[in-house]
């Protein structure tokens, strides 16, 4: 196999010789002595990680709101006009995935409503070009968590409980802590299952 080619199990050919096994093996048996750099790295790495955690956190609240391709305001839609969350995120009541509304659904209203506004024109642009809108994802769980919207909607958990007061936000950001701690405390309060496989499988 050529170097830098990807082998049958998708591993990079890397620096292995041309005739190396396709069943790649890390060089477990190479006996390199611990260099000073390595020792420093071993001490430094946990420190760096610790600082990273202290500074940010994937499921922690986040104050920054990323700019979306269209400056969509939840404050106007969900706040001022009091449109129900489930009107647009309609799959939340029947599927694990809440999803984002189709462009067609947006256009259902905006063909007429506020059609002259610059942001709505952007929307019309996507619709005319037959392009989906590449929204930036704000809320999410890691791959080892199985979260179901439908189960929570059926249990009358308010959307705000996890998503924060989006009806007050022009640009949505993650205002609520989405760590396992929060899941568990709510599950305990509501006497919902705290079995590991309820969420991890």
């Amino acid at each position: 196999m050529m170097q830098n080619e990807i082998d049958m199990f998708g591993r990079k050919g890397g620096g292995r010789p041309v005739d190396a096994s396709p069943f790649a093996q890390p060089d477990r048996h190479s006996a390199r002595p611990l260099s000073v750099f390595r020792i420093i790295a071993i001490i430094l790495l946990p420190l760096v990680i610790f600082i990273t955690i202290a500074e940010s956190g994937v499921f922690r609240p986040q104050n920054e709101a990323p700019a979306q391709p269209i400056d969509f305001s939840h404050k106007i839609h969900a706040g001022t006009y009091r449109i129900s969350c489930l009107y647009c995120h309609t799959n939340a009541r029947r599927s694990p995935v809440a999803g984002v509304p189709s462009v067609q659904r947006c256009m259902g209203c905006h063909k007429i409503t506020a059609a002259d506004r610059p942001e709505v024109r952007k929307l019309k642009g996507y619709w005319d070009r037959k392009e989906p809108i590449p929204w930036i994802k704000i809320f999410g769980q890691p791959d080892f968590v199985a979260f179901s919207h439908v189960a929570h909607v059926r249990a009358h958990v308010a959307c705000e409980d996890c998503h924060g007061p989006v009806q007050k936000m022009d640009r949505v950001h993650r205002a609520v802590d989405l760590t396992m701690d929060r899941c568990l405390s709510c599950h305990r309060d509501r006497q919902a299952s705290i079995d590991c496989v309820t969420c991890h499988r």
Partner: protein
Amino acid sequence: MNRRDFFKLLGIGGAATLTGCSSQTPERLIPYLVPVEEIIPGQATWYATVCRECPAGCGMLVKTLEGRAVKVEGNPDHPVNRGRLCARGQASLQGLYNPDRIRQPLLKDASGQFKPLSWHDAEEWLAIRLKELRAQRREIVWLTPHLTGALDQLIDRWLQAFGSKRRLRYEPFAYEAIKVANKLLFGLEAVPTCDLQSSQLIFSFGSDFLETWISPVMYSREFAAMRAYEAGRMGRFIFIGPRRSLTAANADRWVSVPPGSEGMIAAGMVRVIIAEGLWRGVPKGELDRIKGLVDRYTPYLVSQATGITPQDLEALARAFAEADPGLALGGGAAESGRYATATVAAVNLLNYVTGNIGRTIRFGPLSSLSRLSPHRELATLIQAMNDGEISALFFSEVNPVFSLPRSAGFEQAMDNVPLIVSCGSFMDETTAKATLVLPTHTPLETWGDDESWEGLYGLMQPAMEPVFETKPLGDLLLSLAKRSSDSQAAAFTEESFYEVLRNRWRELHRRVRPETEFETFWSEALARGGVFQETHPRRISLNLGGLAKAFQWLQTLGRPDNLILLLYPSINHFDGRGANRPWLQELPDPLTQLTWDSWLEIHPEDAQRLAISEGDLLKVRSPYEEIELPAHLSTGVRQGTVAAPIGQGHTAYGRYADPDDLNANGFGEKRRGGNPFALLPVEPDGGSRGLRLAAPVTLTNTGMKYPLASVSGSVRQHNRGIAQAISLAELGSGEPELDTRHLQLDTRQMYPPHEHPVHRWGMAIDLNACTGCSACVVACYAENNIPVVGKEQLARGREMSWIRIERFEEGPVDRPGTRFIPMLCQHCDNAPCEPVCPVYATLHNSEGLNIQVYNRCVGTRYCSNNCPYKVRRFNWFTYPWPEPLHLQLNPDVTVRESGVMEKCTFCVQRITAGKAKAKDEGRPVRDGEIVPACAQTCPTSAIVFGDLKDPTSTVSRLSHNPRRYRVLEHLNTQPAITYLKKIIPDSEQ
């Protein structure tokens, strides 16, 4: 900082670094432009279609999520397989997502290299050639596999439009001897229905009906039903042949006979039955003629030729005659050897004189395999190609360069054909010789239909959008015809193949259900997977002249000096077409437990005589060709016979099948064994002139060792009572004694017992029904995102399968009984893995599941060391899925990374889904509603899953069955899996 906090930090730290990387390219949410009505994101949509992995034509349901197929299951409405699939069917997804699929049209340039070109250019190029050929009235040939329905008709029509009619439906296993023998005896060139279920005794003369013969999923189901124990009785099964195949390993008795002598045994049995007056329903006049034909096959003569004692032959004959009804099947080596037609004729005669024809052998519904082209047509084609009569050869999904004997000269003959067009999904040995390659859809992406048996019309629909820029063969044919001339365009008025298919189904609609609207009929057929009609058997009578003719080929054998090589279709790869599916390569052969390889099975005494030991690389030379194969010592072949599985030895079938890609330098610096098809003779069998799957060979030891990757521990149980059995007599005598050898139970416990307030999930596995077919293993790979690790890792014992089929041998070393036992996590109540986990990554939940929390696991592997069943699997590496195989991943199951332990979860994602559904509908979970992937696909329903807290559930009932036992019960692990002992009928013969 305490330990818990430390791990918390470590976990979050890891995640933070990950987001650190990904924050530069934020994850996007891409909405639908216009939502698709039938798709709810996150909810599965199922489409019914037909499995095309072999000619059996099982109904299949494809589970799609967000528009991609993630799992296939059998269609419960389809009469062939009733909801079950075999290992090959389960792996059909890896055909769809195979990374080696051809992604664009390819044209061979002057230097012999394939160059990609656009669809438009490719079609234009071909249309010009076709126009020329038609103007010059040149002959075009179409070679397809077993094909029925609309596409089959369209190809014939297409050929006609171009003024040709040579059309071959080619399968390496064409059941020609069966067809010809039936033609001679009963005047019908057909493959009949075999009713295994109503038989009391089955004699298989070489037929591997549990593996690859005709319709293995259907026969497995019928076989299990026939073997079911009821009121002291069960159906019995005797296998007669030179090799102990998987089917033979499931028999009560394997009668080992030299290859080619099966017909004499059948004839000898007929003679005994007539001589002792045990025949049923044979007219007097016929009886005398038959008697005259079989008179020379005296027990003494048969004994001389086969080694069966005369007493044994008589006992076998009496047992068969007593069975009312019985069933004798001829197939496999017996049906593809030198005396194949005569053998099948003798087996038919045995059925005839015992009155089974019309009862367990019925000529209706007939299998559509009856329509396969005979081997002699292929021979004629090769001749015509060599004579330059063929101007263009079109083929689709057939690989004759691989599956014909090399001495047949197909490959050389292709050099004399100026235009060769391959319309298939994969590069293979035959496609590599093509001028133009037009990549077509796989069966999961196309419309189509399939009539596997008379009256069973299966309908195929695309389960998803095409993965690559391929085209359906039907549309391609229409487009080519239209491009090549105006008159053709007038002849083919259909817009698309979909319209061709609907027109054919309009005819069917008029014939079978004219009272309903066509659209209703059509949509019902789509939802159901087809239209299934009853067909009544034809009345047939014996043609004595034909019988006499067939018997003239039945010869008395001399003992051959040479070793005879028998080839058998591999249960994993069939005729070689499964070799590019990584799941099927990783799946151990159920008998040898070898993976990723082919081998030569040789009897230990022969091996000793020839100074061969396990793993020696042998040169196998037949009069026609020579290949290399590693030796595997096995008492499963008789002395004087060696056997090799068919399917490996590809040279151009993608990264998983190609020995050069895999093993050139990786594992022992030796190639995987060659293609044994190459060794076969071209001279066909005397009667049917079909392909023979046997050849005389000589072996030379190269002196090199070839490492075989086996997943087998010991073949013997060493008195551990893992796969237990009970005799029929003991079972019938009321309360059988429980095997107490292992039951010196000390039930004292350190911990309080677990409470299961609502459910206690459990499983019952009937070892009397398990045939070892391994469909469950592949289903589990598909459902649970289990990675493929490759041969070298397997040899290091790092396989990842959550369920495995263990095979043990019992009794005498040279003629052992075989037992299979599916081994998976036992979900012990007293699980040894749980207390040793330092981070609580494995623990017991309130429903009795032994759960594994991947995000907690730190990979100490203590649990695996402490598991007595050895069912825990450790991810030594992160094994990626080469694109687009990753599209098959089940989103409901976490994909594990290196350093994490994993194991069977009882398909917890299905349990959760089942509970959620019941909760939504405001009712308790119904018994049988939650089915794990292994139980779902089991062709014999050997695996039953359910709630042990519900006393009325099937699993509760089975766990009190008199045959119940639990594996390694003396360890007091209190498993949730109850096994039911295999029943060994009393040997009367």
